[in-house]
């Protein structure tokens, strides 16, 4: 729902937005509970449209003192119970940990600790990375440290094919490193829209699935091979109406045999 963040600033807006998403055939949303409602309120709005939230959100930077982790896991479990799901998402590695490999190792410990608590509570703990985790430290990378120094049973990952590309990898190849560690992926396209400007400086842009340059046959093959169960449409920036963009992604995924 980060995609439609500007269309859900109030409960009234959220209701309208959910209505539009329902018409587009969206059944699940990935959302952090807005400040103007709570888990029960959000669940009610979703259920009225036959929709559901796929996960709860539990950021690590809310854990500031003893007992915070346990308390927040309990909160996440309660929210998952309300939503009817068993997945807890967490935030990106904070900047203070990104300066060196040791920082990544320390954060891997935190993720693994939180993931273990979630696992004990019957929940799956998911880290959604972006591109900067692909920073190299000699022969390894930040993402490699997070993968190797967390227990596969405690910490899952939610890859994003756009950020895998932005990181300098080919997503149909780099998705394979998440075999056994991911069950959902974020999908959006990576495009060069040559509308104006000189060819060497036109910026890349985010686009609906199928409207850019990504290798979707390769991506879907890799995703299937590693066991991806759900494709979460997201588009951080839209150059036209956001619901038009979401609809375009839905149509493309249908044509590709997804859903």
């Amino acid at each position, binding site marked *: 729902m980060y995609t439609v963040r500007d269309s859900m600033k109030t409960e009234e807006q959220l209701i309208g937005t959910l209505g539009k998403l329902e018409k587009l055939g969206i059944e699940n949303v990935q959302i952090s509970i807005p400040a103007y409602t709570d888990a029960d309120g959000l669940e009610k709005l979703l259920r009225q449209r036959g929709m559901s939230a796929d996960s709860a959100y539990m950021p690590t930077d809310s854990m500031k003192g003893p007992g915070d982790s346990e308390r927040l896991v309990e909160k996440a479990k309660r929210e998952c119970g309300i939503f009817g799901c068993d997945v807890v998402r967490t935030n990106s590695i904070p900047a203070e940990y990104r300066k*060196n490999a040791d920082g990544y190792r320390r954060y891997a410990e935190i993720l693994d600790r939180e993931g273990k608590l979630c696992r004990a509570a019957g929940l799956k703990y998911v880290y959604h990375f972006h591109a900067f985790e692909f920073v190299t430290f000699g022969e390894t990378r930040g993402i490699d440290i997070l993968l190797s120094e967390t227990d596969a049973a405690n910490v899952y990952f939610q890859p994003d094919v756009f950020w895998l*590309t932005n990181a*300098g990898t080919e997503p149909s190849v780099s998705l394979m490193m998440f075999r056994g560690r991911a069950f959902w992926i974020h999908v959006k396209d990576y495009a060069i829209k040559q509308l104006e400007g000189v*060819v060497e400086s036109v910026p890349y842009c985010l686009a609906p699935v*199928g409207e*850019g340059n990504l290798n979707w046959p390769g991506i879907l093959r890799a995703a299937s091979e590693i066991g991806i169960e759900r494709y979460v449409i997201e588009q951080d920036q839209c150059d036209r109406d956001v619901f038009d963009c979401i609809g375009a992604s839905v149509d493309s995924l249908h044509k590709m045999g997804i859903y």
Partner: protein
Amino acid sequence: MKKLMKSVQMYTLRDYMTDRESLLETLNKVAGLGYDGVQTQLPAFISPEEYAAELAARGLYADSISSPLLEVIGNRDGLARLCSIFGIDVVRVNGMPEGTSNSKEGFMSFAEQLQQAADSLSQLGIRLMYHNHHGEFTMFCDPKTGENVCGMDIVVKNTRSNVLFQPDIHHIHYAGFDIAETLKKYFDRRAVYIHMQGYGFRPGDSEPYTMPVGLGTYDWKEVTRAALDIGVYNFVAEQDWCLGDPFTDLAFSKRSLDLLLGC
């Protein structure tokens, strides 16, 4: 098999060649790093003859002469003279003429212009080489038909083999494509020079930067293998932005190229 060459794209050192004195000092350093040659534009403050002599005195070569595409045919004899001065047979063009990059028709027109320029130079035994960036990889999507056509597809398929290309591996990636696969798909037997530059995140950064060859997230062995397979023999180190000393970065790139090419 053509001897493998390692060159420096002098755009990397643009801030270090602002006058004759700094240019000569920069050439000293480039030669000292062990590069075979440079890819350069002709500065206004030195004559072509002097520049060629200064390069030769340092054991360097210029791998091409630069020209705006639209001036190639009209200035053919001038370009031929420059090629003769520098002992080279490649004219390098880059950038798409205004109005050609926004539509499939524009890309077709651009392809025609490239072909005409190449045919004109071919009559004098000179090769035309187009250096692309990432904008050429724009995708024209037709929502009605579902057809997606890449601009580079249009250019490559509508030009003949005497139109050469100089891919840049970073710009291929920046366009969202797999570097090795794109080299093989578009540029097999159509590229003999390639720009090599890395890309990645420095520790603590949220934004990526261009980096020396051998650093960053690219699969260097795979990319180098693909480049050799398609016929590239001149590997041109470039770095659009250097956060530190560019000579240090170019030294790293040279060492990386030595390792990757095994020579």
